[in-house]
Each structure stands twice: as C-alpha cells, then as structure tokens.
C-alpha cells in the first residue's frame, strides 16, 4: 500500500483518499475541506465514459458554514458523495478532516431505526459509550433541531421535514468535525428551512472547529453562509464569500435575461 507514491504522481486510479495532513501539497492546517482538480466519470451501460465532475477545486476553512449552489444535475450531490468517501474520484487530490458525517437528500434513506431516539443514536454504536452518555448526546442533538418532544415517536408517523430533522440530529449527535448536508431543504417549508439552517449554525457555534457544507438551490439561504461555491455542468465556476457569489449569480441572471430579450 504505497499511498504516498500514488498521491505524488496523481495516478489515474487513486485509492479512496483520506490522506494524512503531511501529504498535502500546500498543507495549511486551516482548511477542513480541500480538493484540487478532482475529476469523476462513470461508464454507462453503452460503454461510454460520462464526465460528471471536471477539475473541481475547493478550499473551505475550518469552523465555517459554506453553501454549494448550482442548477439541477450539475453534480452537487456527486461532489458531496466524493467528499464523504462514498465515491472515489477518478483523479485529483482530496483532503477532508475526520470524523465527518453525511446527510442524504432523502431522509427515508438515512433514518434506519423504527423509533426516533434509537435512530439518532445509531451512529454512536461504533463508539464505546455508556447508555447515560448516549442519552445525553441524543437529547442534545434532538434539542438542537427542535425535536426533543418527538423522542419516542415512531419514525413513520413523522412528516418529511421532521424526518429530515431527525437525520440531521443523527449527524449532529456524532459531533463530527465536518458535516456534509445534501439539499436538506427539499422537504422543508419556508419557515422550517430557515429554522433548520439556524439549528445547524447554532450547533456549529456551540462546538468549536466544526465545518459544514450545505447544498441548496435557494439563493435566499446565502445570507446565512460564511462562503459559497457555485457549480455548473460539473465545474466549479465561482468560489468565495457569500456576497460575492450572490452578486455573481444576480449578474449572470441579468445578463441571461438581457440575452433573451435581445
């Protein structure tokens, strides 16, 4: 297993990259997520190579709340799955702080136990905690997303948005360094959605050095972010603080409308 060699030459088939910090090229400790020139392609059934991600580079400082924006099918979920380690990139360099947790787009896939509290505690099963510690963490996580009174509810009696909150609570309970959240607001209504963003931000603030990457479609959520990444067609188009991205997207919209009108 000579990971060092394969990393240095950026070989076409990299092993799943969870490299240790010294291997990073411009290794500054302050980034929680750092990818460079990541490519990802899949083979279709007709043996055609489809490029889904091309030359994506992102640097996200630790302790911040960032958003990943882009139109449908631009590769946001794919990029997030690569960051989570569910897919391995075809090419490129990647570093994500550990431990990390990932919340799926559809909460029905994430929530695996029949009762809320058991599900929130499911991720803690790999650690050796006492029941008292687990109870405490579950209560804290459920409280953060405003679902404490649903502690013993059967999961199938919850609404889509409530299931999503349970899924987030499961991620929060693990107290990870990196939270990867895929388009959580699809099931939530307007007020619910801001509530969940605030809950995530609150839990970031309460524990030091936690970084979150939040995938969204909605521009109005940008005001809560420290920074944002804008993607289109599998490429990272813009990368910077939230207001710059906001201006950039507004600009694009205006120029697009002008083009149609002309």
């Amino acid at each position: 297993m000579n990971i060092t060699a394969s990393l240095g030459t950026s070989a076409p088939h990299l092993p799943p990259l969870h490299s240790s910090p010294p291997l990073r090229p411009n290794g500054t400790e302050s980034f929680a997520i750092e990818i460079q020139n990541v490519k990802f392609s899949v083979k279709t059934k007709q043996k055609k190579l489809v490029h889904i991600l091309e030359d994506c580079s992102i640097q996200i400082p630790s302790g911040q709340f960032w958003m990943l924006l882009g139109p449908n099918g631009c590769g946001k979920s794919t990029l997030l799955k690569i960051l989570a380690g569910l897919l391995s990139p075809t090419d490129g360099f990647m570093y994500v702080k550990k431990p990390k947790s990932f919340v799926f787009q559809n909460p029905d896939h994430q929530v695996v136990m029949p009762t809320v509290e058991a599900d929130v505690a499911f991720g803690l099963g790999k650690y050796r905690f006492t029941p008292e510690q687990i109870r405490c963490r579950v209560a804290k996580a459920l409280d953060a997303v405003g679902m404490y009174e649903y502690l013993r509810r059967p999961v199938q009696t919850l609404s889509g948005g409530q299931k999503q909150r349970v899924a987030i609570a499961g991620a929060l309970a693990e107290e990870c360094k990196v939270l990867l959240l895929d388009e959580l607001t699809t099931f939530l209504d307007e007020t619910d959605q801001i509530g969940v963003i605030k809950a995530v931000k609150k839990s970031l603030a309460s524990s030091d050095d936690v970084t979150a990457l939040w995938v969204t479609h909605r521009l109005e959520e940008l005001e809560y972010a420290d920074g944002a990444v804008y993607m289109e067609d599998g490429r990272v188009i813009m990368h910077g603080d939230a207001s710059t991205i906001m201006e950039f997207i507004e600009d694009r919209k205006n120029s697009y409308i002008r083009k149609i009108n002309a």
Partner: protein
Amino acid sequence: MLYSCGVVYTLPTVTSSCRQFHTPLFKKHPIQLLPLKTLKPKFTCSASIDDAGPPRNWEKWLPKNLFSAEKVLKSISEATSSPICQFISSPITFLHTVDPRIKLAWLVVLVVLPARSHILMRFGLVAYLSLLSILILPRHVWMDQLGRVSLLSGILFIMLGLGADGAPPVVQLRTPPPSMMGLPSLPASLEGYSYIIMKLGPLQLTRKGLSVASTSASLTFSIFQSASLCLSTTTPEQLAFALQWYMRPLAYIGVPVAEVILTLLLSLRFINLVFDEVRVVALGIVSRRIYWEKFTALETIEVFFTYIRRIFNNIFSHAEQISQAMNVRGFRGDSNTHNIYFSSLSSNSMANILSIMCLVCLVGAAAVSDCFV
C-alpha cells in the same frame, strides 16, 4: 426589479409570434384528420335467432365492475400509511413503565393459558384483557382494537360452537355406534348431564362444540388483544431488547443473536417504506386518469405488471441507499461490535414487581383450575 420588467415586456411579442406560426397549422388540422377518421375500419358483430324479436339485453344481468382496476388501485392509494398497531408515545401509562422482558413473558403466558385451562379461566382472561385495555389505552384506540378483535372472535365462537358437532356423529366416529354392534346403549345420566346444551333447528350446541369454540375464540382474542396492547405501549427497540435478553443463551450454541436483532429492527423500519412505496406508485397510476374502460383485459394486466415491477425497482433502490447510509453512519458490517441504543425509557421497579406478582398469581390460578377439573 430590472429583469422582471424585461420579462413582462417581451412576453407579448413571443406569444404573438407563436400565434402567427400556429394559425395555418390549426386550419390544416381538420382537413387532414377527417378522412383518416372516416377511413378507419369498423366491425360490428351481432347474433340473433330468426324468429325471435330483438335480442334481449342479457348483458346487463352480468356482474360488472366487480373487479375494476381503478377501484383496486384507488383503494390501495387511499389506505392509511400507518399500520394498525403503533406505539403510543404521549400519555405514559403504567404499562409503559413495565420492563419489556416482563411484558414479553406476559405475552407468552397469555398465549399458552387459554388453551390449557378451565372455561371460566378463559372467559376471565378475556374480561381481564378488555378491562386492562380500557383502563390503559386512549378511548378511540381501545374502541377500535376491542371492536375489531371481539368481532373476529365472536364470529369464530358462533361458527365453531354450532359447527363442531353439527355433522352427524356417524360421519365423525371411526368406531361404529353402539346400536350397530348389538350392545345396549349407555344409560342416561342421573345428574342432569346432557351432551347437547342447546338446539337451534338443525344446528346444535354441544359440550364439545362449546369447549372448542370457547378455546379458539378466547385464544384468538387474547393473542390479538395482548399483542396490540403490548405493541402500543412498547417501542420496537424495547421489544428487540427483551428478545435479545431471552435469546442470549442461544449465542453459546452459535446463533447470531445480535445479527438477528439488528435485522429485525431494520426490517421493521423497512416494512413501512415498502407500504409507502406501494401506496405512492398506486397514486401515481391513479392520478394519470387512465380510461380503464378502453383497455382490454390483457392491457389492464400489463399495467398491473408495470406497477409491480416499478414497486420492486423502487424497493431495491431504497435498500441500496439505506445500506450506503448505514455505512456512512459508521456501521462496519459487524453487528456484534455495533451497539444499538434501545431506549431511554427506564422501567419502574414498583410496576415491575407488581406485574411479576400478578403473573405468578395468574399462572398459579390456572394450574389450580386445571387440577380441579
């Protein structure tokens, strides 16, 4: 603000240009389509007997719409999402605070007892279970549960009670009746014993019928009612915990207890996803407003096969995603090293002692009643 003005401004020009393009097409359509329609071959079949008048409309006597595809799919899509017995979390009652292991023992006892005890004991158990349900559960829940269960066991009681000995004994007995063997028949009992308790025309309620009917009806009642009482006051995780506790000795002979328990819990969650999927896909078909009357039987069956294939596809994709999610959440495929957190609901020691004492009394009473009879 700027772009919204632009959109408003451009809209009329776009639509008007569309209209310009389309008007000639619209004019052409009727001319093109009419001949096609008239050319369509048409077959009519009729059959009649020469001397009879107009054929009688016998078709309307046939049962129609007994099994219509639309009805089936509609009823599937309208079914409630929640299964019948569900944990009731809000008012925490006495039964919530009893240890799940004791509840499981109660369940086993209530299943075994009605089959092997005196008839009074059986009816006593039924009364006890209904009383407990009424006291513990919210009103609408016990009305619903008890109504359903007593209807079922009532039907069973009547059918078995009257049916068990309804057939003449000649058919049932293997040995020929005494009259055929030339033996004097047995003398009638002096103490007023009679085998037949009640006669309703051709039907008769005999002692054997009563015993069979009361056993099976009270067994049905106590199984269903105690199960639903247990499920509505115990979470699936607590039940799994109790089951694991009882199964622990089996681990020494190589039974993968932890795996069985985890599989049980996952499938309890997964069943709901399956129900949801069945419902949602049915809704998808119903909302397309298909003209089922125009379909032949074969085409209707084809739609049903598409429906079933679709459900299976979705379920498999769910299963794949769930296994991915479990991996992400730290499950490494070994259920022995992955601890499951069962419940934060701690049991009350007073409630535990009380329920164990009641259980012992019940078993003792059943044994005594068995001895006396």
